[in-house]
C-alpha cells in the first residue's frame, strides 16, 4: 500500500468515526482515549536539505496486531504509537544514568546514542542556588565520535514574560566540561568548556469534556463499591492493595487507597466514594482541542572550540490537534525541527514532520 493510499484510508476512517459519539464503555478513558480495535498511523518528513530525500512511514493495526506497515515511525511521532509499550524516554528507568538509543532519526539516517543523568550537588555557600550535577554521554555511530560531559545546571527558572501566565514554561542554564573522542583518529579528540541552556514553552487550548462527568463518576463509584460496600471491608481491601509497590498500582487501585485514606471516623463511606469519584471523573474527562509547545536547547563553546560556529542550538515547535469534538481517537501532529543535537554537533536538522493517527 502506498503512503497516499494509507493516508486516504486514515481520512476515510476518520470520516466514519466522526458520526459516532464516544461510546459509554470508553467514558472513563484518559487522553488519548478510546479502546482501540483498529489503528492507522502515518507520517511524512519534509527534509529542507537538497542533499537529502524526504521520508515517510505508515502502519495499520487491528486488535493490536500489525496488518501492514512501511518505514519506521519518527522519533517525534512516537507519541502517536498507541499500542507500543512506554516510550524509551518514559517510564521504567531506575538509574541515574540511562542510555537512549534511536535509529533513523537524523537527517543523515544515522544512529544516535545519548545518555543523561542528573543529581543534586550541594556546594558550601551555594546551597540556595540548588544546583544539580549533570552528566552526558553521546555517540554518533555514523562518524564514530563520542561526547562525554559533566557539569552543573540551575533548577528550572521561569521564562521572562510568562511568569504569570498559565503556560508551562521553564529555562535551565548550565556549565559543562566536555570531551570529544574520535574512535578513528586521535587528531579529532577535543576538550570543550560549554555554557548550555534548555527552554520550553507550551500550552493546551480549547478544553472540553470528552465524556459525561456524572456517567464517568457513576462507573468509578460502582467499581469502588463493588470492592467494598462498607468501610470495614474497604480497609481489608486497602491492606491488600498496599502490598503492591506504588509504582505498579493501577490508577483505580491508587484511587481506592486515596478514598480509604480520606475517610475520617464518623463520615459516610459511600458519600466519600461518591465525592472522590466525582472529582476524579471531572479531571480525567478534561481534553484539550489543541496544544502547542516549543523547545529550544543550545550550547556555547567558551573554551577549546575548533568550530567556526561556537554557538549551536536545536529548536522544535509542535502542534497537536484533536479535531473531533467527541473523541480523542484521531489527532494530527505537525513538528518542525531545526538545528543540532548535542550528540551530533556536525549534522544539521531542518525538517517538518507531519503525522496522523486514528484508532477505533
Amino acid at each position, binding site marked *: 500500500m502506498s503512503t497516499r493510499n494509507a493516508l486516504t484510508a486514515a481520512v476515510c476512517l476518520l470520516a466514519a468515526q466522526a458520526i459516532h459519539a464516544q461510546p459509554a464503555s470508553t467514558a472513563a478513558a484518559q*487522553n488519548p482515549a478510546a479502546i482501540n480495535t483498529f489503528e492507522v498511523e502515518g507520517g511524512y518528513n519534509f527534509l529542507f536539505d537538497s542533499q537529502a530525500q524526504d521520508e515517510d512511514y505508515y502502519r495499520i493495526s487491528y486488535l493490536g496486531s500489525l496488518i501492514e506497515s512501511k518505514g519506521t515511525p519518527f522519533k517525534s511521532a*512516537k*507519541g502517536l504509537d498507541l499500542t507500543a509499550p*512506554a*516510550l524509551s*524516554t*518514559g*517510564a*521504567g528507568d*531506575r538509574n*541515574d544514568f*540511562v542510555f*537512549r538509543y534511536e535509529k533513523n532519526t537524523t537527517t543523515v539516517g544515522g544512529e544516535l546514542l545519548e545518555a543523561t*543523568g*542528573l*543529581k*543534586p550537588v550541594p556546594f558550601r555557600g551555594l546551597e540556595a542556588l540548588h544546583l*544539580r550535577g549533570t552528566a552526558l554521554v553521546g555517540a554518533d555511530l555514523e562518524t564514530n565520535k563520542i561526547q562525554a560531559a559533566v557539569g552543573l545546571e540551575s*533548577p*528550572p527558572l*521561569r*521564562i521572562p514574560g510568562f*511568569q504569570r501566565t*498559565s*503556560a*508551562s*514554561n*521553564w529555562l535551565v542554564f548550565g556549565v559543562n566540561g566536555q570531551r570529544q573522542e574520535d574512535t578513528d583518529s586521535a587528531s579529532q579528540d577535543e576538550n570543550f568548556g560549554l555554557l548550555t541552556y534548555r527552554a*520550553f514553552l*507550551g500550552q*493546551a*487550548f480549547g*478544553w472540553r469534556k470528552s465524556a459525561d462527568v456524572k456517567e464517568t463518576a457513576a462507573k468509578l463509584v460502582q467499581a469502588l463499591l463493588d470492592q467494598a460496600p462498607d468501610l470495614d471491608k474497604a480497609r481489608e481491601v*486497602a491492606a491488600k492493595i498496599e502490598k503492591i*509497590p*506504588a*509504582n*505498579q*498500582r493501577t*490508577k483505580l487501585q*491508587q*484511587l481506592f*487507597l*486515596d478514598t480509604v*485514606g*480520606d475517610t*475520617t471516623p464518623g463520615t459516610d463511606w459511600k458519600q*466519600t466514594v461518591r*465525592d*472522590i*469519584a*466525582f*472529582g*476524579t471523573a*471531572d*479531571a*480525567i474527562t*478534561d481534553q484539550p482541542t489543541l496544544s502547542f*509547545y516549543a523547545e529550544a536547547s543550545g550550547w556555547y563553546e567558551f573554551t577549546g572550540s575548533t568550530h567556526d560556529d561556537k554557538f549551536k542550538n536545536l529548536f522544535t515547535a*509542535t502542534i497537536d490537534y484533536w479535531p473531533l469534538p467527541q473523541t480523542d481517537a484521531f489527532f494530527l501532529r505537525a513538528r518542525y525541527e531545526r538545528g543540532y543535537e548535542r550528540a551530533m554537533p556536525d549534522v544539521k536538522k531542518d525538517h517538518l514532520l507531519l503525522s496522523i493517527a486514528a484508532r477505533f
Partner: protein
Amino acid sequence: MADLTRDDRRRNRKHVLDALKQETGSSGGSAAAERVDAYRADPLGASTVEFGFVGALTLQRFYIDPDKPNKSERRSLWTNIVERLDKPDATDPGGWDGTTNVSQLQAIAEEAE
C-alpha cells in the same frame, strides 16, 4: 500509607503540586489552574471532591508535550518532591511518566526510601 494520617496525605499532595508548579510553571492548564491553586492554598480545608480532582491530574497536563517529562525532567521533579517530603535521599524506583497522575506519583514518593 498506614503510617500517614489524612492530613499528612493531603499535605503531601500539595507538595507534589507545588513541585510541579516550580518545575513547569503550570497549575495543570487553564481548565484546572484555579482549582489546583485553591487546593495548594488550603489542602486540609479542601473538599474530598477537590482532593480527588487534583489527584487525578496526569503529569502530561503540566508538561504539555506527551514525551515529557524526560529523564532530566523526571529527575529534577523527583528531587524537588522528595526534598519537600523531607526525605532528600529517597531513591526514585522509576515506573512513572507523563501518564502517571499526581496521586500515583505522591504514593511512589511516600513509599520511596
